[in-house]
């Protein structure tokens, strides 16, 4: 069962698709989010968001900071700026 990932910058919705796992650069260190994760709101530090589909990383995006909202079925990343790696 995948988790719906959304990455949004102030200027536009950059990405919205289901992934198997996503690793986000939380303020306390990298955090892997699988489906059925407990609801959380975390602060992001500068780092790379990695999208896992199957066992492979299918996409990496660098963010300069922001916030992420995690619910059991959904991950929403509000990034300040996003650049593809």
């Amino acid at each position, binding site marked *: 069962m995948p988790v719906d990932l959304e990455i949004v910058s102030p200027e536009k919705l950059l990405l919205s698709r289901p992934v198997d796992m996503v690793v986000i650069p939380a303020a306390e260190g990298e955090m892997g989010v699988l489906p059925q994760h407990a*609801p959380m709101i*975390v602060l992001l530090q500068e780092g790379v968001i990695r999208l896992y589909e199957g066992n492979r990383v299918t996409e990496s995006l660098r963010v300069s900071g922001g916030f992420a909202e995690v*619910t059991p079925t959904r991950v929403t990343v509000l990034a300040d700026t996003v650049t593809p790696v």
Partner: protein
Amino acid sequence: MATLKDLRVRITSVKSTQKITSAMKMVAASKLRRAQTQAEAARPYAQRMERMLASLGASVAGSPTAPKLLAGTGGDKVHLLVPVTGERGLAGAFNSNVGRLTRNLARKLESEGKTVKILAVGRKGRDYLRREIGSRLIGDISFAGKKTIGFAEAQEIAARITQLLDDGAFDVCTVVYNRFQSVISQIPTEMRLIPAPLPAEGSASAGGAIYEYEAGDPDEPDQEVILAKLLPQNLAIQIYRALLENSAGFYGAQMTSMDNATRNAGDMIKRLTLNYNRARQANITKELIEIISGAEAV
């Protein structure tokens, strides 16, 4: 009575004016489309931010340590008005509507014994307010010469406002802008920024989930750390929205007013052409009479 030549000259001049206004209308229409797309693209971020803010704000609201951006200074004495207008004119009453609303708001607040300060965004509003109530103007921000308005510009304004708040220069901040209702209708609206009106928790679609918070600072409660970051961002987002609606509305207003101008020019050309033909006919008739009466006299 205008001579034939005068009329011809006027018709040509009205025709070239019509060409200009119809070109401006087309340009405004294409810029409007771009501005609308930009405004739509910005919406998802604002919606999601609102959702997060609703769940966070509720847990901090009322606490004495609530940040100033959320709770305000506690006072209600000094009001900062931020009118957002366009950089250019030829858009009907678009800019002066915001100017007038700001002026009336300022008068009303002052009659209630409050102090008003104005930070004007956009050249047209600044000029208008300088004429009307110049002494309240404490600064202005203008994006003249910038092609597109990005989030960076909104952040610049937000930083100015936050700076003023930290200096204790005002208690309540309200932005006045043209809300984009449709292409032909923009409604001058006031929106309070500080203290931030919190979206009701019930409106959040979080489904009542209880969140854990994590901000990586062991010395302070995580909620407050996140909120302290979220609020300035939210301020910038609100301003960004006002800027985008303003620019979409501006092109909408410009399009409608240029459409009217083109139509007016068309009517005028029709009237002038009628006059021109009448004058021409009158001339011909007069000449004929002269020839005939000349021939009869012989």
